[in-house]
Every structure is written in structure tokens, then in C-alpha cells.
């Protein structure tokens, strides 16, 4: 089952770089990350790549394989033919540091801009009561492994650097939705979702959902419901009145 595969790997840094050709051994059952590791052990000991768990659970080894945003550890070599050239490039939306490693600090800045969970002031630790059915909506979003493939693929920023300041991307709009749907969060997050995190940039093309390795229905379950909540809040006078006389969202 062992064969020699043709690989093109982007190598370089923030100043310069390009695709480099490698012919590398592939064994049965291997994933693209195994091949990258083999290149490190043989031809390119300084080839830069991020990885941690190699089990699809940490979201470190995000890259683009033949142009598709993927986790290197979750892409099996058996999905390619033996004659096919496999091209591995860094995430396009973020600045390159070196080789396959990009500067993803954009995501950490956006994470920091989302106001934290605000529990009811009168509830002590151990007194929290929530029903399973109510926590499940937010739990789906908390499966997120922060691989940032959705952030990378979203067309609102992928080729529009200028939108990065006003758009937080699917991952963090989903984070707002998660908090908004948290049964005990007391903060009204609708206005800031729209005005500070750029929910309006999303025109529900579902690209984020397509690349999510955790199969989270980002668009259907987080972004669209959040949009609906924003619209309700903005235009419904009864909701507005209700918000003034009750703590419930």
C-alpha cells in the first residue's frame, strides 16, 4: 500500500514564499499531518506547522488542502488518488508567520471583545438550575474547537481585509448566540451583535457550516436565530416594552 505521493507545500514567511515540491512516502491509513511530519523528519526539519492532539479535538492544525480549509489531522490520504498532487497552503485569511503557520491573533482579539457571561446576581454557586433541553442549544456551540476554519472561509473577511475591524466572524457571532441562548445569562446581546460584531455582514451562504469539523450548524442554529432575535428586538414594540419591565430576555 506504500507509494510515493507528490506534494506541494507552501513555504516562506511574511516577506516571501512559494510552493515547494516534495515526493514523499505515504503508507496505508495515514492522514495529511502524518505526511507533513514525515517531511519534517526527512527533507525539511524546520517546516513550520501547528499541531497538538492529532485527534481532531484541539483545532490546531488548520490549513488549506487543495484550496479547501481543513484540519490536517482529519484529512485521510485515502481521499486522494495516488497520482494526485496534494497542495497544502496556510489559511488564506490570516497573515503568514512561517510556512503553514498563520497569525490567528485576530480571533483572540474578537474573543476578547465579546462581553462575558453575566449570571443573575442573586444566584450562589451550586444553586444554578437549568433543564437539559434548555442548555442543549448553547452546548452545540460549545463543541467548537476553535480551529478557525469558519473564520478563514467566511467571504466577509476572506478577501476583505477592510471588514476585519467591524466583523467578528461566524465563530464569535456564534459565541454571542451561545451566550444569548444561555438560560441564565442576563445581558441583552442583540444590539451589540448587530452594531459591534457585524452580524449584518452575514448573508447566510453557510460556508462556515460546510467547513466545520465538529459539524456544528453555525448558520442554521446560531446565526439565523440570532438575526431573528435582533430583528424582533429592533422592530417589535411589545418586546421592547417587555424588556423594560422584566429581567427575562
Amino acid at each position, binding site marked *: 500500500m506504500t507509494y510515493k505521493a507528490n506534494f506541494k507545500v507552501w513555504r516562506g514567511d511574511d516577506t516571501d514564499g512559494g510552493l515547494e515540491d516534495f515526493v514523499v512516502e505515504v503508507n496505508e491509513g495515514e492522514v495529511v499531518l502524518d505526511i507533513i511530519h514525515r517531511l519534517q*523528519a526527512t527533507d525539511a526539519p524546520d517546516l513550520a506547522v501547528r499541531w497538538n492532539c492529532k485527534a481532531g479535538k484541539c483545532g490546531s492544525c488548520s490549513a488549506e488542502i487543495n484550496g479547501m480549509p481543513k484540519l490536517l489531522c482529519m484529512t485521510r490520504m485515502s481521499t486522494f488518488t495516488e497520482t494526485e498532487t496534494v497542495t497544502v497552503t496556510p489559511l488564506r485569511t490570516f497573515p503568514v508567520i512561517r510556512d503553514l503557520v498563520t497569525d490567528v491573533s485576530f480571533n483572540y482579539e474578537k474573543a476578547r471583545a465579546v462581553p462575558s*457571561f453575566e449570571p443573575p446576581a442573586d444566584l450562589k454557586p451550586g444553586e444554578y438550575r437549568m433543564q437539559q433541553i434548555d442548555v442543549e442549544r448553547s452546548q452545540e456551540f460549545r463543541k467548537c474547537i476553535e480551529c478557525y476554519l469558519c473564520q478563514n472561509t467566511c467571504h466577509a473577511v476572506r478577501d476583505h481585509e477592510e471588514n476585519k475591524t467591524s466583523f467578528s466572524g461566524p465563530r464569535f457571532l456564534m459565541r454571542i448566540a451561545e451566550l444569548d441562548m444561555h438560560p441564565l445569562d442576563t445581558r441583552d446581546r442583540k444590539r451589540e451583535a448587530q452594531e459591534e460584531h457585524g452580524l449584518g455582514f452575514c448573508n447566510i451562504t453557510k460556508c462556515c457550516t460546510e467547513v466545520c469539523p465538529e459539524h456544528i450548524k453555525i448558520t442554521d442554529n446560531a446565526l439565523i436565530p440570532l438575526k431573528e432575535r435582533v430583528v424582533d428586538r429592533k422592530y417589535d414594540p411589545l418586546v421592547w416594552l417587555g424588556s423594560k419591565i422584566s429581567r427575562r430576555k
Partner: protein
Amino acid sequence: METYEYDVVVIGAGGAGLRAAIEARAQGKSVAIICKSLFGKAHTVMAEGGAAAAMGNVNSHDNWQVHFRDTMRGGKFLNHFRMAELHAKEAPDRVWELETWGALFDRTKDGKISQRNFGGHEYPRLAHVGDRTGLELIRTMQQAVVSYQQKDAVEHGAYDARIKVFAEHTVTRLLKRDGKIAGAFGYRREDGEFVLFKAPAVVLATGGIGKSFKVTSNSWEYTGDGHALALLAGATLVNMEFIQFHPTGMVWPPSVKGLLVTESVRGDGGVLRNSEGKRFMFDYVPDVFRKQYAETEEEADRWYTDPDNNRRPPELLPRDEVARSINSEVKAGRGTPHGGVFLDIASRKTPEFIRKRLPSMYHQFKELADVDITAEPMEVGPTCHYVMGGVEVDPDTGAATVPGLFAAGEVSGGMHGSNRLGGNSLSDLLVFGRRAGLGAAEYVDSLGTGRPEVDEADVAAAEAEALAPLERGAGGGAESPYALHSELQQTNNDLVGIIRKEAEIEQALAALAELAPRLDKVGAVGGRKFNPGWHLAMDLRNMLVVSECVAKAALERQESRGGHTRDDYTEMSPTWRQVNLVCSIAPDGSVALKHQPVPTIRPDLLALFDVSELKKYMTEPELVAGGVLAEAGAAPAAVVVAEPTVVAEPEIVPVVETATVVETETETVVEDKADGEVETVTETVTDTETVISQDKEGDS
């Protein structure tokens, strides 16, 4: 070189590190979190099962005393009793606190945190979120750190004013002045720049050592950094011989070798077969277990539906037995092509059953291995999972023997004794992460203004050490870090693995001695910018010294206990139970080993156990001294006994005790229906299971 000043530097951003950092910040200290990977990627995210805490939400009989007992039994009474006590008492508060930071655990019907059964835990005790509890802990604490940063941005004008995350930074040396911690030296992966942290207190929370072994469930970061940093700074490591090998890790395909296969596969009917198709476990039932385990496949198969009238399948023997048996089959030439055995559930259960009961296993094999476990068997073998040993600390404060140095989580030792119970790791890192953060903050306060100054000569030496592999480059005689790493992993795997014997451990020590001078020749090419070859070259020092500790302690301990199995000393010895093996660095740079008494268990804690159980672990004089046993042979009138009803039985020392427990597991299965609605099915499964009380352990 960039220089920073902080009150407390926390090395490691897994569960223990984040909890320590949060606590130190809550105490008003300025805190740096040094994170080897990106923030939020720590190995803690791999933990599946849950966090053990005796909240009593599912069974109200649970309390800290029961949890304490389970933990001590799991560790075979080698645990530091005070750590086991603090852990059992404080775990519930630590879990509840996570909810105030936004954690969303699975719920009971009355809205409390749900708790699940796990190996070795008498009652349902693990707070969990499906099978991704570790991720929930990390995300929650990551967001708690952010929450502090948001407050600081308002108060001090900058997010990083009081607590800053140094992502993708690695510390290579701790710095001391006059015997006290003065700071830490490291590098930034992105550009290879050196970074100096001046700080009077350092908390180590770097996790484990699994990457020193070829087959491991551990992630890239687990290179024993904290263990080595502590040693090199003059601190001590305890219990390093105890390493937990899980019997069923994936062995094929290579990309997932070592990845954990949950014990539930066997609990739900999966069986182990060799290359001849034989259910070999029937040949490996030890005499002491003969009564509790089925002798025929027919009887074993009946047990799943009628546990009252049949004995359990031998596939459900204690983990060390199963791992040993798999090892023997492979050595005898009856292994699979890839050096494991077959774990077969496909031929025994319907695809629907498998997908419903083992969704994550189905997903794991399907996506990572292209194996459909409903149609074909899995290949499995033992995998290095967790190190019980670590930095010797004061239980209450997490303080190591070096002033200013603290440790928490997997990098610390003592809490789990010779063997960790599943679920006790996530609770461990919460309880002792907080205590270490608190301990560090109090230590900083105690120093007043007299903080130790970093010695510039030490910084220069650390810099030279870090640059050495790059300076050697690929020049003549330079060693490849990847090749050396691979040899080290193979050595540990083959010679200091799950089953150990004197001659093999000696062989390992000889191999490690040969690797040491080669480490000084390891070269890296390609400059300082994000250079994995260079990073590995620096990690190798840590893996090598930790491997020496493991091998030396394993050679010394002439008994089998928990995560240390000796082929040449198969019994567990009450005399050895009184001994902790402690590693330090000798003046010549080698690892020195000394015997140290295991701390004496407080009488009130000893009294929580039945004396007949204690006798299996402890010597009679210990029990007399602990006040739970009358002095044997003394005249009744002369004996001063606290509890006169307890009678000595000096002749009866059974090797194992068995107990039957009934486990009731409520699991919620969520199925997405085609129309997008979510349907929740809650089903209750009752498993009756015989648990070997001396070998209760379990993850996932």
C-alpha cells in the same frame, strides 16, 4: 530580549494552569500565563469522561468521605492522604464555581448538574458534558480569564494590564537567586526571540510526559517540561515509576496510534480476539479472580443480560490484567498485523446498537481511521496515558521544595498514589490549580519588597543552552532531533512500558546513558522563526531526564502496584507501600533516587475504612499505630484500644477483595431529525458489575 515583571508566572494553560492564574489574579496579583500552544489548545481538551466531585446530585449517599475512600483504594494507598482529602472535600465547590463562569454541564431532571458512573467511583460522581468535558473546562476558564481582562481594560485601560497570556511561548529554564525562584527564561515560537520573566513565584502546570513513549494518548506538548524544569531548579519528583497504561488504545492506522478506545466498548459487549480468532482472555484469568469470571463464552455472553446468574466476561478484568494479556498474545506471535489484538463488537451487536451506545467511538474510527466499527473489528493495544508521579508538593499550598516554586495538575505528584481513577484528573486540576495559585499569591505577599533578583549570568547560560542546537546546525556529526526522539520513544516503550523486568530496565538505563551525550550533538537548521526542529531539540532534554527518573524508580521498586507492573516482582508489598521514591538531580547532573516514608495517614481518615480492608495494604504495626487495630498478642487487660470491637486477624491476608456494585447510568441521546427538530431520548441503563476494589481505575 524582552523582559517582563510579574508577581506570579504560571507555566501551562491547561486546566490547572488556568485555575491557578485565575486565583492568583483574584488575589490581586499580576499574572503571566505561559502557554506552549495557542490559548485554549491544552491537552485538557482531550479529557472526555468528566470531573469527579461528590455533589450527590444523582445519589444523595455520596459525600467527600466516600470519594476519599475510592481515591485511596484506586491509588492503592500510596496517595498523599492530605491531597486525597482536600480533593474530595473541595471538588464540588470547584465544579459549581465553573457554572458561575458560564459552564454548561449536562443536567439531571431537576435541573442540577448530572453525574455519571465511572470505574472505581462508588456512586455516579462525574460532572460531564457528553464526552467533551475537558473542552468545556478549558473554554470556561479561558473565558473567565478574558472576563478578568475585560474588567482590567475598563479599570486600567488595557486588557493585559493584570493578566496576560503569552501564547506559543516555551520556558526552558527557571531562574533562582539564593535558593529562591527569581524568574523564568524562555522563547517565543513565532520569531524565536528570547523572553525573560522576572517573578518571585512560578506555578508549574505543564501536564505529563507521554511524548517520551512511542504509543501514547497524549498530545504534542506532553514532553515533561515542568517535571524537568523543577528537577533542574533543585526540586524533587515523587512516584515517577507509576505510569498509567490504558489497555485499549488504537494501534492502526498509524495516524491514530495510541488514541484511546473507551472501556465502554467492552462493557457493551465487545470482545478481544487474537489473530486466530480466539477469545484469548479466558486463558488469562488469574486464580484469585477465577470465582468471579466466566469460564465459557456462553456463560460470559449470558452475563450481559443476566448478571445475577452468570459470571462476567474476562474481557472486563482489571486494566493491568487485560493489558498484560494483550501483551502476552502479541509476544507469542498471535497479534494483529499491526501489533495489537482485535476488539470486536461488529460481529456481536447490531449497527444501530453500536451507533447509539458508542457514538464518539463510531465517529472516531470512521473519521480518523476509515474503519466502520459496526462492520469490522478494531485493532487495539496498550497506550501510555497518564503519569501519576510528579513534583513533590505541599498538599495545602502546592509549594515545591524550592521556595517560590509551585506545581498543580498532572505535573505534580502524590494525589493519585500509584494509580489514578478516571474523573479524578479534571477535579484534581481545579482543586490544586486554585490552591497553587493561592499558595503563590500568599508566598509573594510574604516576601514583601525583598524580591530575589535574576542573576544575569544565569540568563546568559540559558540563552547559550537554547541557541546551541542552532549553532550546531547540520554540521558534521550533528544528530537529528527527530531521530533521537524516535529512539527515545522506542526505548521507553519497549523496555520501561507496561510490563517491566530488571534486565530490561537496566537495558533502558544503558540506552538512555548512550542518548545523553548524543543530545549534546543535536542540531537544528532553518533559523529561529517558528522552527519545530529547534523546538524539539530543546524539548529532548526534558524527555531524557524524565525518562531517567522513570527508569531508575521502576528499577528500584521491587513490587507490582497500580501503574507499575514488575514481571519479576508480581506481588504488592505492604512494606513497599511505606516507601515513596524521590528523584532529584545529583551534583554530577545524573538522577539521584532516595527512599522517603509515605506520610502517615491521619487516624480520623484511617477510621473511614474497614480494618479488614486496610490489612490488605498496610502492616500490622502501622494499623496499631494508626489506632484502628489492637496490638496482636498483648494481654487484653494491658491493651489500650480506641475501638475494642475490632479484632485482629493476623493470619488472613487476602490478595484481593471483590465487591459487587450496581451501576445505573442515565444517558441522554440526542438525535437530529431530518426536519431540523431536536429529539431527546433519555434512557436508563443498569449495569451490574463486579469491581475489583484493589484495581479501580478508569477513564472514558
